[in-house]
């Protein structure tokens, strides 16, 4: 019987091809835009995850405390964490390693080429903390840091911009007129979430940077420090230990504020992820407005159809069609329309999102959600927009319907 109902419904709607097509178009556009928006949201979230993975998520970031004057919170205050603090942090339980960074931006010169670059003064542990790997050559050592050796590791952008096809190992770069020997190159990391090139980097011992590029009256202080925790669920306890250790090392009395701030990468990841999630939810919500409009389109068409086919309905009833049969036929018509519409919309949405991904050079996932969305739209929209017209058809009195002109 279901087959017969579907067949009658199919023949009925295919009798009005243009009208059916236009009605379907509303659902096609609605589903396609929802699928597209979900894909966009997922792509953003994937990018976020990728970026954080490249930094490592079980990181604790230590920065100077925010300045507070007269209740107004300002930017970062004076550097307060020393290189020795960081060495002490390495000894804490559940800490894998710790590192620090002082940075500056200079023009790197090699031969006749030059390029603006971000310079990180740090210790050898920064490679572990920042998930960096050595492509060629060797990293600098703890000894080099102590001695303030002019050894540098360079990112792929610097390799490409200054050395081209030459092997950079052993070559001498000039930064602010001072010579630095390239002892290694770093594996490429690509752009970060904000579109910044992470490979435009030079790493050197922090002591070297302090001595040769950026002097300071507090030369043993780091701009920022990183602690890598062994496991992600130890983050909280480690951050408490860090706070205790730093307070005692900085001789802070009870009741005074910390002169440093602690940020857990896991929390930051959560925050950014939730922003991404809300964003994709919002986009899909806006897109689904077109679905509502499309659904109203189906209802409208079905109501017109019931009125137009009043005599047909009367005839069918007179010739033995039970009321339920009539109702299911009209319901089937709207479900078929919404089913086809959402199927085509799903294909269209996935295709468009892949094309957009290719154009923007981003990996766009083909998500199971697009199938879930379109299938549920097919059923929900079909039933919701079809039930009223179908009931109207069902309730027609055959005598009245046969008399209808």
């Amino acid at each position, binding site marked *: *019987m279901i087959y017969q109902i579907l067949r009658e419904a199919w023949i009925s709607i295919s009798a009005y091809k243009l009208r059916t097509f236009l009605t379907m178009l509303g659902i096609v556009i609605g589903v396609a835009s929802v699928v597209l928006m979900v894909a966009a949201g997922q792509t953003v979230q994937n990018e976020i995850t990728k970026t954080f993975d490249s930094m490592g998520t079980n990181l604790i970031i230590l920065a100077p405390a925010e300045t507070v004057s007269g209740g107004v919170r300002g930017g970062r205050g004076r550097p307060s964490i020393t290189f020795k603090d960081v060495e002490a942090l390495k000894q804490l339980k559940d800490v894998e390693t710790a590192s620090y960074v002082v940075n500056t931006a200079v023009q790197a010169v090699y031969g006749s080429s030059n390029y603006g670059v971000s310079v990180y003064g740090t210790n050898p542990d920064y490679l572990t903390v920042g998930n960096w790997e050595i492509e060629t050559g060797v990293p600098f050592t703890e000894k080099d840091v102590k001695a303030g050796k002019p050894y540098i590791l360079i990112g792929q952008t610097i390799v490409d911009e200054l050395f081209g096809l030459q092997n950079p190992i052993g070559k001498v770069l000039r930064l602010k007129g001072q010579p630095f020997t390239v002892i290694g190159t770093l594996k490429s990391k690509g752009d970060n979430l904000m579109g910044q090139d992470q490979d435009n980097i030079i790493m050197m011992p922090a002591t070297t940077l302090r001595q040769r590029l950026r002097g300071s009256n507090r030369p043993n202080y780091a701009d920022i420090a990183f602690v890598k925790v062994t496991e992600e669920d130890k983050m909280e306890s480690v951050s408490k230990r860090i706070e205790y250790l730093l307070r005692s090392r900085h001789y802070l009395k009870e009741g005074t504020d910390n002169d440093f701030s602690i940020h857990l990468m896991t929390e930051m990841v959560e925050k950014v992820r939730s922003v991404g999630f809300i964003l994709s939810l919002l986009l899909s919500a806006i897109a689904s407005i077109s679905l509502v409009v499309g659904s109203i389109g189906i209802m409208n068409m079905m109501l017109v159809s019931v009125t137009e086919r009043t005599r047909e309905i009367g005839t069918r009833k007179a010739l033995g*069609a039970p009321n339920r049969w009539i109702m299911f036929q009209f319901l089937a018509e709207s479900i078929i329309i919404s089913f086809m519409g959402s199927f085509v919309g799903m294909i269209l949405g996935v295709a468009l999102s892949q094309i957009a991904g290719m154009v923007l050079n981003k990996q766009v996932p083909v998500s199971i959600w697009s199938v879930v969305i379109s299938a549920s739209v097919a059923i929900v929209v079909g039933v919701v927009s079809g039930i009223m017209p179908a009931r109207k058809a069902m309730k027609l009195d055959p005598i009245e319907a046969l008399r209808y002109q």
Partner: protein
Amino acid sequence: MSRTQVVIEVRNLCKTYYMEGGASQDVLKHINFKIYEGEFVAIMGHSGSGKSTLMNTLGCLDRPTSGEYLLAGEAVAKRSDQELALIRGQKIGFVFQNFNLMMKRTIVDNVSMPLIYQGIGESERRSRALEMLKIVGLEGYGDRPPSQISGGMQQRVAIARALINHPKIIFADEPTGNLDSTTSDEIMKLFTELNKQGITIVLVTHEDDVADYAKRMIKISDGRVEYDGLRKGYRA
């Protein structure tokens, strides 16, 4: 009259319409008659006489307010909509004044339509429809839409549709109302032919020369049976 089976029996059939505000109108008043298998009966009457209401009640499209109606021995006066639909589909054939064909469907689809509701499969529906088209003289037209054939032929399609479920009785409501006199004669001859093969036909008309094809006439006037007997002008 030969002692054959009673197809329709109505006893004390009444129909009252209740209007808003409490007013009521008796449209059918204590109607009694029997129709036997193989009869060709014309129901006549002026407009407003109640013949349409009688027709709708006999056709199981409507229920009487009171009284009894036995169709092929089965009491149908108090059945539900669902049951009446089933009875119509199995025991009754309808022929309408304006044919009521689905113009966008093929003639076979139109003729076989009542069988869908009997749960009969597609191939059997088609073969039975083609068989019925042969009976009404429309062999070879099955796969065309009704819009391509004349009004007289369209009414033949409707008659084929009425015959397809092998009904106990066929109700023809002004079947020639939309046709010219030549075509009307052809349609009435077809009915006569079918009647000779033993099919019971109830014809509702207000045209005398159409009614003359029926042997028996029931005349309704003001909701009552005014005359029930041999049609005077019956052309044997």
